[in-house]
């Protein structure tokens, strides 16, 4: 009985939650006149996608975005793992202050620091590059914080056991901590990739050419203000740009479940 009720509740919430995506699918595949009218007999069309695809060099933007999120994620995973390990398992002078200073990044909105950071990139001579978009995000307080919580939950005995067997600090990290934190890494990766896939203001300011600009720059073309909103095109563009993420998530779901299985066996 409770089971049925629970299932019903979960499904109701899920339907509410997926409504915007469902609407995007509806609007993208129908002519503009049906974007506010839900008639089952409405004709299907790909014209919205065609218009959207032709409005910007999306193929190149896809490549740029993939390079960007890969670069950022790789740097974040390495840097955050090292720093979180230090905070979770090392005693050193100034640790608590250093941790507080790291957390500052959670609170300072990168959007507020645009002017200063632009100047820095300009002095480094790397304006208009993937590196310039990524640099301010490579050290991630969010990641450090998350992994520190996870590493702290790892039983100290496992650590000690590995050290008794003669493993160095980095080996312990790699052999003991990283495998145990796998679900957390996947969660973090999903979040990081989605965030940077969709980040907009900083990339458009720090880049100028098609060689480095990400997808969102192409998406923004349709958020034009003078003319009012054409939901059909915006939805088509949104689906087009988000499709790789949605597909990746569907694939990663398996990984998720598998890492769960392994955690259970352990």
């Amino acid at each position, binding site marked *: 009985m409770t089971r049925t009720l629970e299932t019903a509740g979960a499904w109701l919430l899920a339907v509410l939650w997926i409504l915007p995506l469902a609407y995007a699918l509806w609007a993208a595949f129908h002519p503009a006149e049906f974007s506010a009218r839900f008639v089952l007999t409405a004709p299907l069309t790909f014209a919205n996608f065609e218009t959207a695809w*032709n*409005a910007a060099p999306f193929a190149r933007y896809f490549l740029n975005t993939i390079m960007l999120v890969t670069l950022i994620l790789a740097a974040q995973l390495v840097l955050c793992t090292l720093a979180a390990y230090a905070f979770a398992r090392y005693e050193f002078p100034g640790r608590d202050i250093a941790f507080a200073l790291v957390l500052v990044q959670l609170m300072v909105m990168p959007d507020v620091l*645009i002017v200063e950071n632009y100047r820095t990139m300009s002095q480094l001579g790397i304006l208009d590059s993937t590196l310039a978009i990524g640099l301010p995000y490579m050290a991630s307080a969010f990641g450090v914080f998350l992994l520190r919580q996870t590493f702290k939950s790892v039983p100290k005995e496992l650590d000690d056991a590995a050290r008794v067997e003669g493993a160095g600090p980095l080996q312990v990290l790699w052999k003991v901590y990283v495998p145990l934190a796998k679900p957390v890494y996947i969660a973090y990766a999903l979040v990081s990739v989605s965030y940077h896939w969709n980040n907009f203001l900083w990339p458009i300011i720090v880049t*100028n050419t098609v060689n480095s600009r990400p997808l969102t720059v192409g998406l923004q073309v349709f958020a034009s203000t003078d003319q009012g909103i*054409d939901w059909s095109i915006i939805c088509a563009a949104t689906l087009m740009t988000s499709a790789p993420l949605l597909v990746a998530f569907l694939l990663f779901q398996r990984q998720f479940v598998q890492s769960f299985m392994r955690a259970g066996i352990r």
Partner: protein
Amino acid sequence: MLKRLALAMLAAGSLFAVQAGAQTEISFYYPVAVGGPITKIIDGYAAAFEKENPGVKVKPIYSGTYQESIVKALTANKAGDPPVLSVLLSTDMYSLIDEDAIVAWDELLKTDSDKAWHKSFFPGFMENSQTGGKTWGIPFQRSTIVAYWNKEAFKEAGLDPNKAPASWNEMVEFGKKLTKKDASGNVAQWGVQVPSSGFPYWLFQAFTTQNNVVLMNKDGTQTYYDNPAVIEALQYWVDLSKKHNIMKPGIIEWGTTPKDFFERKVAIMWTTTGNLTNVRSNAKFDFGVAMLPSGKRPGTPTGGGNFYLFKKSTPQQREAAMRFAKWMTSPERAAQWGIDTGYVAARADAWDTPEMKKYVQGFPQAAVARDQLQYAVAELSTHDNQRVTKALNDGLQAALTGSKTPEAAMKDAQREAERILKPYRK
């Protein structure tokens, strides 16, 4: 000292020009504010210009919406790395001058043809491009407000489908006939819609102009928000929903207004001429485009973007930028740009080109904006522009949502504007 610096810069500039085989590169920021493959059109223009002008390389850079463009341009300027040329809102003029970011075009106008070019634009558009006796902006993608009406809805209401309301009284009268309720008492179709989200000051300026009153002085140092005629204009706007019940109450979203019109939820809408192409392709009924109704006089503000020339540029770049701006605003290009986007071609002779004549013949509504230009006034723009404008926007929204009376709202707005503008009066 300054002179020597200028000389050195000149020398360096010419040296550079010689070494690079007289190749001058000009970077050019532009926003996109209407639908269509705008970035491709601009890239095409740049390539065509380069072909005709060897030695000049144009680097067009799409910079987002207008707001993102000004952020990008001023951020780059503060870091010492601005574009040479940029299209930004005409109302950004004072901000750009206050930041010492731009130079006036006047010094570059040397030949007679240059001077003729500069005189060729509609005076209504130049009002927002000049201050202190200098020209800071060259009109490029400019617009005004017009009224779009649904001819079928007019017919159903027993009105002449070919006659839009010509006066304030007529608008109320027509509006009452056009407002329809369904069985449950909900309004199925409103008579009129004047959007009020985001930048209500722009639409309000139409009412004030029609009530024969201006909102600011020519130097951008004084506003007249609490002038009785301004309050009267606001009262009329508020009454459209409060007293006459012909407009949706509350704040009306700008972005959804065209869709409201397409969905037949409103019979008359006020919006930019930049929507012309959009309405033409999406309205599934016969529609008309009209000048806004007259109060004491007809009137509308202008809007849209100008070319600005940034200060941190070499003489060669400035010269090349001028050539490019001149090329982009030539009659043929201005006509083509207007046809492609729905913006008002900014000079009279553009309307005499064969393409434009053909376009207007097939689509006479396109000429309404041009004919209305003789009544157009400069868009609200002062020093510390966005702050002074926000004071008015807040007051307007307070009056439209009913949290303040029009009089109290405008008095508060004026007090705030006074406080901000005081330091700019010498």
